[in-house]
């Protein structure tokens, strides 16, 4: 309680730091603030080229799927990356002046929220051009963002504190994020993961993992970032419906005889029904929310405990 009051007293610091972050980030580039939007757009453009044009992905609205998955992911990963730098960068200040240290990871979080909002506006613009349906279920974006933001705060506070003591934390975090990206359903549809019956290569790996596969899938679905992405997709693309969608196109392999194609198409709704029964979403959503909350609390406590010795160890 006392901590919250203290934070409120220093809210202007937070506000000014956020303003500074936004101003500084793109100060020296010709295109200025638009870089923040151009970067993700170019990234999405590259994936579009690779997966849609070169690999001929037939999934419906693939580009819209990409964008709705990438926005929450970008927000999360950028928060964590900025987290590694937020205290180290301000060490001179931390050593000289008193202010609640939690202001630093919070400013990283809020700056990225602003970026997310801007990117969201651009995305709505693209949707207008493509005539993807607008509907009231867009509100789902808000709780999904809150979920991801809570989780991101916890992790970014943790890595912020550790970065003060070990310079290599930021490299480790960067690499782990690169890996984590592929463990969220940004580039591929979720049902491909949930539908996996066995792991293909290598006999020893197969025997090791196949027994654990259901648990791995459960952990996969409990990731707050994944749940956040599902929330975005559900709200923005399928009118608030269940985001486990099996597209027949994805079951069709190139060079199949027409008969097999018809069978695959008929099989899709059955598979979809099975997956939805096997993975009821509400327990996973509640689980992810609890994980996000616990991460935020633990991250904050770690940060607070270590913040007391920042000025001595930096």
């Amino acid at each position, binding site marked *: 309680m006392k901590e919250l009051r203290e934070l409120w007293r220093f809210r202007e610091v937070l506000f000014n730091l956020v303003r500074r972050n936004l101003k500084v980030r793109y100060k020296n580039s010709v295109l200025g603030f638009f870089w923040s939007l151009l970067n993700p757009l170019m990234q999405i453009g590259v994936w579009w080229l690779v997966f849609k044009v070169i690999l001929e992905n037939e999934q419906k609205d693939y580009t819209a799927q990409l964008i709705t998955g990438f926005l929450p992911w970008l927000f999360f990963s950028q928060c964590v990356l900025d987290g590694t730098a937020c205290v180290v960068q301000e060490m001179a*200040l*931390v050593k000289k002046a008193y202010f609640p240290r939690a202001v630093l990871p919070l400013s990283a979080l809020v700056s990225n929220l602003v970026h997310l909002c801007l990117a969201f506006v651009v995305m709505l613009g693209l949707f207008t051009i493509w005539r993807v349906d607008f509907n009231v279920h867009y509100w789902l974006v808000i709780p999904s963002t809150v979920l991801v933001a809570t989780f991101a705060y916890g992790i970014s506070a943790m890595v912020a504190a550790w970065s003060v003591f070990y310079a290599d934390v930021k490299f480790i975090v960067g690499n782990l994020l690169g890996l984590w990206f592929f463990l969220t359903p940004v580039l591929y549809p979720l049902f491909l993961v949930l539908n996996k019956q066995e792991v293909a290569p290598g006999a020893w790996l197969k025997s090791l993992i196949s027994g654990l596969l259901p648990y791995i899938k459960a952990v996969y679905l409990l990731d707050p970032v994944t749940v956040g992405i599902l929330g975005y997709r559900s709200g923005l693309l399928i009118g608030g419906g269940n985001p486990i969608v099996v597209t027949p196109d994805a079951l069709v392999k190139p060079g199949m005889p027409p008969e097999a194609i018809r069978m695959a198409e008929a099989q899709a709704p059955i598979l979809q029904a099975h997956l939805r029964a096997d993975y009821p979403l509400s327990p996973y959503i509640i689980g992810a929310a609890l994980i996000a909350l616990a991460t935020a609390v633990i991250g904050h406590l770690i940060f607070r405990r270590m913040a007391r010795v920042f000025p001595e160890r930096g």
Partner: protein
Amino acid sequence: MIEVRDLWKQYRRPHIKITSLKEAAVAFVRGQTGYTEFWALEDVSFTVNAGEAVGVIGPNGSGKSTLFAIIARVLEPTKGEVNVQGKVCPLLELGTGFHPELSGRDNVYLNASLLGLSHEETRQRYHSIVEFAELPEVMDAPVKTYSSGMVVRLGFAVAVHMDPEVLLIDEVLSVGDEYFQHKSFARLKQFKDQGKTVFVVSHDLFAVERLCERSLWVQNGKLIMDGATAQVIQAYREAVAKQEQSVGA
């Protein structure tokens, strides 16, 4: 008012400097995880009343800056108590917290908020701050284009406009040119006359002599002497002279 009672501060100095996880792992394997504990401050007690200007002098590594940081709430005491009544404002050296890419104006607002001023309060004082720093024509230019003297002037101007009841100054008295030094001194004198507390940590004995009627001599973490500035400085100088002789001999 600043009240320091039985203040102890312990630091841990690791035997080897560890800055990466690899080094930490190597140190762990070799069993070099030890550190030396030492006291940066030992049983320091004093009271500074409102309207008093007190200087702290002493050689490098004596614990002056640690004392300063504890009073500014940056560090926590290991033992003992520090009570500071009234709004504290540390004078940040050389515009600490100024961001080179931002304009002077943005930096003033950022720095003022760090020192506890609201946007509205800063807005009211903005003109006076710029006036004091004498930089009206460059406030919209990024701070990286300023000379170091200009940065210092701006930082000082922000700090003295905070309306602090307790002003903490760490080694920043000799900033700016001769003219600005006079000006800042006059301002600090004015503070004192208004019944505010000024707490100075400095190597600059002349500055302490001019500003403070009372001084603390800190050495090896202990409070050696507490009294009238003239006497404390004389005693300190004598001790330094003695040390020089013994080194020379």
